[in-house]
């Protein structure tokens, strides 16, 4: 026994059960925990016997706060859920509100949202792969990937004005249309992406060290994955070809030609490879969308949610009042409830909204993939080495913002 011990701020589910078993804390403040999460592990030598995962260190009362703001004011908040792909959160939330209001978005908006969702997915997967490779010591791969991600961020900043938290979605449309030359630059970035991703494949795919660290490590069976509510790349890495974009197509996905990559083993290597392949499919989709992007307005013509033109606000009383009401009271959303789910980079991102009719939600609940994944991640950690906790955790891509809300 040590001379003194600091009492743990959380109550672990277990203590050392027998001689030789050691209980250690990993996190909450640890470079490999991607934000703040605590893993309490009972070790037998180097082997992890039991794991108790604690999240909540980034809890900021998101759902409570949402009940106190207008529907429009929530858009910047949802950006901060999964801060690696803020646009997908924006679009999923906006679609949920639009469903409640019975609004159908314009074709151009639909295509742009799809394109930007896929673009965000690439940025998110790049972040995840880069971080998990770096944790295995692959610094070059990390720098290549983050370089491309930075091109994407800068490019999105040219469109939205922000690198990470975009606030680009609007109820009934988007904040603004594409600036001149945006698609040309997009084309350049896609070509650069292919160049760099080729180098990553060359560096990693058949790398002995990488394979030894990831093959048959952190295995999740399809049965466990479904039982623990896993979705997204983790579920697909276990060989279950489920993808909302394919199964229940939303936005413009029904019109696109793409494949759903799946793994075989459900181990860390499969998760790496599934993400790499998904990015390729996203590139394919973006190219199709660029060719088919229809002209026309990006916002619906509906005074219940879309702000009138500035020129009109300053020149006629109806638009002035309309603008005032929308800003001060928020869009009036009819009473009802809705659950809208999008395929976010990590899995199913769902918004459950309850409205009693009025300018702000009565209840707002986020079904965040990361939180659900934390409920089952112990299945992927138990039975492996302590050193495997870090790569496995990296391959799950836990995002504190959406996990803890």
């Amino acid at each position, binding site marked *: 026994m040590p001379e003194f011990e600091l009492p743990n*701020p*959380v109550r672990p589910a277990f203590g050392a059960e027998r001689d030789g078993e050691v209980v250690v804390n990993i996190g909450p403040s640890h470079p490999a925990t991607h934000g703040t999460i605590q893993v309490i592990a009972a070790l037998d030598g180097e082997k992890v016997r039991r794991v108790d995962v*604690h999240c*909540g260190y980034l809890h900021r009362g998101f759902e409570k706060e949402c009940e106190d703001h207008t529907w429009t004011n929530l858009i910047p908040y949802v950006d901060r859920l999964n801060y690696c792909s803020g646009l997908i959160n924006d679009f999923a939330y906006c679609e949920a509100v639009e*469903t409640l209001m019975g609004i159908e978005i314009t074709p151009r908006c639909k295509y742009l949202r799809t394109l930007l969702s896929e673009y965000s997915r690439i940025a998110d997967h790049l972040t995840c792969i880069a971080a998990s490779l770096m944790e295995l010591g692959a610094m070059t791969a990390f720098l290549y990937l983050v370089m491309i991600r930075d091109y994407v961020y800068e490019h999105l900043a040219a469109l939205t004005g922000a690198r990470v938290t975009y606030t680009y979605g609007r109820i009934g449309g988007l904040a603004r249309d594409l600036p001149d030359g945006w698609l040309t630059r997009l084309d350049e970035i896609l070509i650069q992406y292919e160049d760099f991703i080729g180098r990553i494949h060359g560096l990693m795919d058949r790398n002995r060290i990488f394979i030894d660290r990831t093959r048959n490590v952190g295995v999740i069976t399809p049965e466990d994955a479904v039982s623990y509510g896993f979705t997204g790349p983790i579920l697909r890495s276990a060989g279950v070809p489920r993808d909302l974009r394919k199964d*229940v197509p939303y936005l413009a996905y029904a019109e696109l030609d793409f494949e759903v990559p799946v793994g075989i083993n459900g181990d860390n290597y499969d998760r790496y490879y599934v993400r790499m392949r998904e990015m390729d499919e996203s590139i394919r989709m973006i190219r199709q969308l660029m060719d088919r992007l229809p002209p026309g307005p990006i916002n619906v013509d509906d005074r219940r949610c879309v702000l009138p033109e500035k020129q009109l606000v300053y020149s006629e009383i109806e638009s002035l009042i309309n603008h005032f009401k929308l800003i001060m009271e928020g869009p009036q959303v009819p009473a009802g409830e809705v659950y809208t789910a999008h395929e976010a980079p990590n899995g*199913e991102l769902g918004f459950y909204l309850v409205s009693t009719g009025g300018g702000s939600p009565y209840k707002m609940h986020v*079904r965040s993939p990361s939180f*659900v994944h934390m409920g089952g991640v112990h299945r992927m950690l138990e039975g492996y080495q302590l050193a495997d906790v870090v790569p496995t955790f990296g391959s799950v891509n836990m995002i504190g913002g959406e996990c803890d809300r």
Partner: protein
Amino acid sequence: MTAPTLDLLRQRLGSAAGDATFAGGTFVLVIDPAALPGVVTQLKTEFGFDLLLDVTAVDWPGQAPRFEVVYHFYSTSHFGRARIKTRVPEAGPVVDSLTSLYGSAHFMERECHEMYGIDFRGNKDLRPILLYEGFVGHPLRKDYPKTQEQPLVPYRTEGA
């Protein structure tokens, strides 16, 4: 979800357990708390709703029973969605836990427990998850003011 599945769902679950509607692509069923384990078992085994997506609650102060516990299910075989709602009173907000059917229920019920004070009978691990040990109250209840302050956690010292 295909039409025959939906009809079958209505037939088998609707009349026996409670109100069944079909709204926005989701099969919605309002049932008694007592019927929950039976209905969910049926949903899982007979209708293939194998993914428990979400557990949450809605607080309706002034209504009796006050809390509405909401479950969302998804099927990985026919891609249907189901929402089960059940009402529990303020005096005894107890529903049966679904942890024996779905592993994902563990964490989601814990969250619902700390946010709304719903007790999930059979879930042995209802420790705080997003909040901390010693948090007073249930923050997502409507009678919990947003500006409410919590008692200070005692400063941790060496050897304490």
